[in-house]
């Protein structure tokens, strides 16, 4: 999965030392909360789209709210997401896709 962050897959932090496998790929996370967030985000995107695989995922924003753009082949989904303190998905609001 192509990502825009080089640090933690959710927040881009380079603190921590946690490596977890997600979608068959070992990814770096700063903490266990971010692992849960990322897993829930991927699950929700796949549920919303029916995709078997996310090819790329771009995340922006901070703890007060993030937006994400996921792509698979020619398809794109964009959403605003929020997580609870345990990392579970609180909100997933689909947004208009980004201009191509």
């Amino acid at each position, binding site marked *: 999965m192509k990502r825009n962050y080089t640090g933690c897959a959710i927040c881009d932090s380079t*603190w921590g030392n946690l490596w977890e496998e997600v979608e068959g790929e070992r990814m770096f996370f700063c903490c266990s909360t971010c692992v849960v967030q990322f897993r829930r985000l991927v699950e929700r995107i796949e549920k919303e789209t029916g995709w078997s695989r996310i090819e790329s995922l771009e995340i922006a924003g901070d703890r007060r709210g993030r937006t994400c753009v996921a792509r698979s082949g020619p398809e794109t989904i964009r959403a605003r997401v929020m997580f609870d303190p345990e990392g579970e998905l609180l909100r997933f609001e689909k947004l208009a896709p980004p201009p191509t």
Partner: protein
Amino acid sequence: MTKCPACLLALGEGDYPGLATHLVERADASDPAHVRWLNQNLTRKKTEPTDLVPALHRIYDLGPGGIKPWIKSRFIARFFGKVPHPFVAALQHPSRATLLGYVVEHQHFLRQWVRSCSFIMARTDRSKVVLYELDNLNTEFGGFGPSRVSHYELLLRMGESLGVSREEVLSTDPLPATRRAIEGWNEIATREHWVSALAAMHSLELIANRNLVAEGASVHYFDPSILEGSEIGVAAKNFLREGYEADVLHSEEARPRGRMCPGTRPARRGAVHVLAVDRPVRRLSDRPPGTRGPV
């Protein structure tokens, strides 16, 4: 004494190098609380302890105004900044679900409030502090008779007006984040100097202090116009109005360097605790509206 803002580990006074080393060690272990504090307060970029020390000095430097503006400015930044806290945003024009979430979680907070203030009274040597806490406890929990009931009673009445009995509210367990917050406040009240506890607990009342807008807050705790129209019910108005009026006095009066506090050192620790418990406070408030109870 310097305390870790994430876990309250005690270090020597002014031992910022020790604090930096501790934070980095815990972050290397991917401890969520320490990583989160570093991410949100210092930097998201992994940094050597020695390079964190100047930033820690900057954070804890009270500046020329002393601790009072120090607490306020940080509180405003946390809750009333350019992007307000999600709960503050939701409370501007609250849905029924938001108010119900407030009821079922806040009742746990008010019960802990009694315990915390009682510890302060038990430990202080100042009768002014005891009288202050007694008045506060009556305002918050005991009430002053049928003509002036407590915030706790007003909260339960708000729940009833929204269709949830007080029995159901009182039998509802706190969310994990609420439980953690309460444990944190209890730890402060039972372990720390009473001035620290006083500062930590009563600084939280800044949340409803309507004067903060004049000091840089982007919004009030809620849009005051909701107290006038028909957007929310009478019981909700009564609850919100009471806090809106009482907490200005409580939060201004009890903070350090006020008449009741003998010095700033323990108070400063208390203020640091406010930041330390900010995460659970936020967790308390981050409760998703409408995830419990009928909506």
